[in-house]
């Protein structure tokens, strides 16, 4: 690994995306990502339901679509989903799990006579991306758990994705094959050898159609560049590079080159005892190939410009909100640690998730976020017990919807939250087997804080902290969401008549 960088002028594996696909789909589908407003016609059964939900609903009605994964309780550790990601068209959805597997779901073609089954996702390909390893030099086990998956923009008929565990990033190609060569010279179709003496003419194999086969092949392995655990990977908009971030360093790779990467950020202090801050997440700007952000355990975000210098140890912008002294406590620093950072699709905003809130920052304003949403403020009084059961260190992720108008992030008790940035309405929904009937509308949930618990409300004390929703994904242009609840993947869609 080299410190410092070089202007790569070689073509890389990146990819193409014609006119921005999300825009295209918006044009073609009248639904698009336009949220549906309350009061539009619904069928009678649901009218009643709606009335009951009343003002608590958000404007989009979410209904159950599918659930993936085993029903049995007590699933094995390896089945726990550790990352979820739609590709750039929303055609494919990938999940990674603690067992090192990647499962890719493909959206079924929409058929006109089955409107309600629009776009169900079915398994397209499953493969073992990472295996458990052992670092003999450091006597450390390296888990196979998939930390992140990132899709590359599509470049030809095949699909490409990056998957990473703690140490090694891999580039996978997922491709289809529907033809098979037939005809041998030295053996017949059943594989029996022919007598060489009977060969009087040469046969050239012919390709015949066969059942569709989906293959996943590892194309590149980017290893040996990270001393600490990789927490993020992000593909650059130049399509030829990507970065990988661990606790203390960020490296820049070219997709074509596996034996060399450039270290662009290094916050490791000369003396590890002086360590006060770690990198928690990093992402490239969606359009400007030169900018990226990284977040830290101190609740700050740094924006770096790779044009200015080969080493980006010095940031060009520093986003930090002054601490409210009245809220200061033993847990302040822990709960302010940022667990995820995401650029909006427009590239104008960044969203960060810390333990109790989601914040939206304008790239042009560094001193405070423009929006702050409380995810589960009722936990503020429980921090002590959450510290004791380690839940306070859970790393919740957050996502934008296709038009950057709604934000989604997870919570405990299989709850997940949505915030509409325009109407400022928020909703808590639950991913559970109980209401997993096809097209069943998700009822908003409410956690009660005081003494009086109303019907349908859940008391803070009865929340199940072992059921956490850390990873979610939102279709790039439609209201389809994927929610990972331990070993199950739930897919919800907005209600369509």
């Amino acid at each position, binding site marked *: 690994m080299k410190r410092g960088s070089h202007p790569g002028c070689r073509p890389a594996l990146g990819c193409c995306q014609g006119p921005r696909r999300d825009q295209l789909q918006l044009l073609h589908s009248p639904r698009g990502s336009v949220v549906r407003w309350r009061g539009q016609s619904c069928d009678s059964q649901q009218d009643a339901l709606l009335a009951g939900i009343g003002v608590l609903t958000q404007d989009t009605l979410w209904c159950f679509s599918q659930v993936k994964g085993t029903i049995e309780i007590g699933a094995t550790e390896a089945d726990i989903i550790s990352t979820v990601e739609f590709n750039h068209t929303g055609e494919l959805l990938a999940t990674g799990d603690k067992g090192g597997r990647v499962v890719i779901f493909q959206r079924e073609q929409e058929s006109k006579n089955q409107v309600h089954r629009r776009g169900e996702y079915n398994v397209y390909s499953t493969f073992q991306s990472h295996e458990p390893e052992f670092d003999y030099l450091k006597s450390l086990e390296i888990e196979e758990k998939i930390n992140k998956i990132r899709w590359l923009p599509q470049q030809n008929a095949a699909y490409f994705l990056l998957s990473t565990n703690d140490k090694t990033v891999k580039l996978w190609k997922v491709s289809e094959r529907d033809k098979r060569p037939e005809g041998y010279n030295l053996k017949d179709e059943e594989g029996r050898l022919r007598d060489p003496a009977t*060969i009087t003419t040469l046969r050239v194999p012919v390709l015949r159609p066969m059942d569709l086969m989906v293959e996943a092949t590892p194309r590149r392995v980017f290893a040996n560049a990270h001393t600490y655990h990789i927490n993020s990977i992000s593909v650059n908009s130049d399509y030829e590079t990507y970065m990988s971030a661990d606790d203390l360093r960020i490296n820049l790779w070219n997709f074509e080159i596996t034996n060399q990467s450039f270290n662009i950020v290094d916050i490791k202090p000369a003396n590890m005892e002086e360590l006060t801050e770690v990198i928690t997440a990093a992402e490239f700007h969606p359009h400007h190939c030169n900018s990226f952000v990284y977040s830290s355990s101190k609740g700050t975000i740094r924006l770096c410009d790779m044009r200015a210098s080969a080493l980006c140890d010095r940031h060009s912008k520093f986003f930090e909100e002054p601490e409210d002294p009245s809220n200061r406590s033993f847990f302040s620093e822990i709960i302010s640690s940022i667990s995820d950072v995401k650029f909006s699709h427009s590239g104008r905003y960044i969203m960060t998730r810390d333990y109790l809130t989601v914040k939206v920052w304008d790239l042009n304003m560094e001193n405070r976020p423009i929006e702050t949403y409380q995810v589960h403020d009722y936990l503020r009084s429980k921090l002590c017990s959450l510290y004791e059961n380690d839940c306070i260190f859970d790393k919740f992720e957050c996502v934008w919807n296709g038009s950057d108008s709604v934000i989604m992030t997870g919570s405990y008790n299989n709850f997940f939250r949505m915030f509409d940035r325009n109407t400022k309405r928020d909703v808590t929904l639950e991913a559970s087997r109980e209401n997993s009937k096809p097209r069943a509308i998700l009822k908003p949930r409410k956690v009660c804080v005081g003494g009086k618990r109303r019907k349908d409300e859940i008391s803070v004390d009865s929340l199940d902290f072992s059921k956490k929703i850390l990873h979610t994904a939102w279709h790039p242009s439609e209201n389809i969401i994927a929610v990972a609840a331990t070993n199950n993947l739930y897919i919800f869609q907005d209600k369509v008549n």
Partner: protein
Amino acid sequence: MAGAAGPGTGPVAAGGDGDDSLYPIAVLIDELRNEDVQLRLNSIKKLSTIALALGVERTRTELLPFLTDTIYDEDEVLLALAEQLGNFTGLVGGPDFAHCLLPPLESLATVEETVVRDKAVESLRQISQEHTPIALEAHFVPLVKRLASGDWFTSRTSACGLFSVCYPRASNAVKAEIRQHFRSLCSDDTPMVRRAAASKLGEFAKVLELDSVKSEIVPLFTNLASDEQDSVRLLAVEACVSIAQLLSQEDLEALVMPTLRQAAEDKSWRVRYMVADKFSELQKAVGPKITLNDLIPAFQNLLKDCEAEVRAAAAHKVKELCENLPPEGRETIIMNQILPFIKELVSDTNQHVKSALASVIMGLSTILGKENTIEHLLPLFLAQLKDECPEVRLNIISNLDCVNEVIGIRQLSQSLLPAIVELAEDAKWRVRLAIIEYMPLLAGQLGVQFFDEKLNSLCMAWLVDHVYAIREAATNNLMKLVKKFGTEWAQNTIVPKVLVMASDPNYLHRMTTLFCINALSEACGQEITTKQMLPIVLKMAGDQVANVRFNVAKSLQKIGPILDTDALQEEVKPILQKLGQDEDVDVKYFAQEALSVLALA
């Protein structure tokens, strides 16, 4: 079977009797789809043999369609296939049928692996030359258009490399279309395609009419040079070199220079790096006048750029830039406009910059002559010889020959020696290794007397270094020195010291003696080897450490051919026989091997 009779295949036997000559071909064809990549690769590499056996007709109608659909294979197989198809015209029936090769190459030009795509494009370019002008417009140009308007960027990037080969031979109407396609690729949505177009811009400009260069290429160049992605902008710098060569000085000044000036001051360091990296080419392309007016000031800025990578790239170009200046007035320009900046770089904060400068700075002495070198450059060399970074010192030492020609090395030797000694004793063994590599060169420059006085002891000290790689390099170094200074010198200076180590208490040092003998015996010749070295080797056969004993066997095997038969029979043979009965298996093994190699068994 009509087509199967190519050269090398006999007439086809009729009836049930198989044709023996068909069998190997049948195996090759079957192995095109073997599970084992190596076998598939092997078959693809013999594709011409298969095609020859099938004949031109069946190659066209059966083999090529099959190959067109085999793009699922491993990269190395696809790469070999793309390469083979470039030389296939004869095997499909000559130039009239060259277009049959386009479909498989077209599908190879869309795979995701860059090396395969590039090879497919290379083969397509080759084949384009074999098309008749009519076939070119009927088959090749449509292929280029298809690729250029493909859905996926892989095909569009491949198209970029094909415009320049079909343009010169196309009719005017088609030429206009080709230009139109190239234009649209230059403003493609994906940076990958714009990069491919930018990197082929110069090549395409060369085959265009001058008017079109001015009216079409220059605007494209200007656009690419101000692309929002710096990875595109930096490629425009390369195109600049080719375009500049095509234009007159006035046009150059008006059409290209504003863009080049802008690139030299780009916000992104990677673009400025590219300007620095391509500086010599740019300098040659724009000519001496613009160089003096524009490039020299730009170069000064690059030498003091805020980004170390840029300064390092510029520092690398110092010598070439100076060499390429017009001889008239060169000295003044260098002294007044370049040297002040170089002086700054000698004490740069970044070691890559300093070491880049150190690798070329000595070259300036030939350009500036003796007096300037002594007065202005020598202080810089001396400062760099004292630099804290070993790489800087090594780069100076490795280029001493340039200075030696101009002022003689004596001027430097006072400072040189401490620098060498310090490097020779550096804590990092890689640094020690690097300086050892330069020893023969230094010895040649400094002469035998200086060497004996000052450096010989260093060379001997390396023989007992605690790192094996250093001891090994030191042994090779001795051999090179003997070749340089002759056997008499070896006999007086080196050999006695080496042989003394044979009775060192450390067995590793005793083994070094053997390794030295292995290396030196040939250069020293029969007499020294027999009289001085052999007795020591033989004596060591009784060493208590088995490693030493089996190395004795190996040494004897090595020096055996230099010895005369008497020595072999009377002295070497008994010892090897004794070692052949050794209690240690390795000693036995090497002794027996030596006996059989020397034909003494």
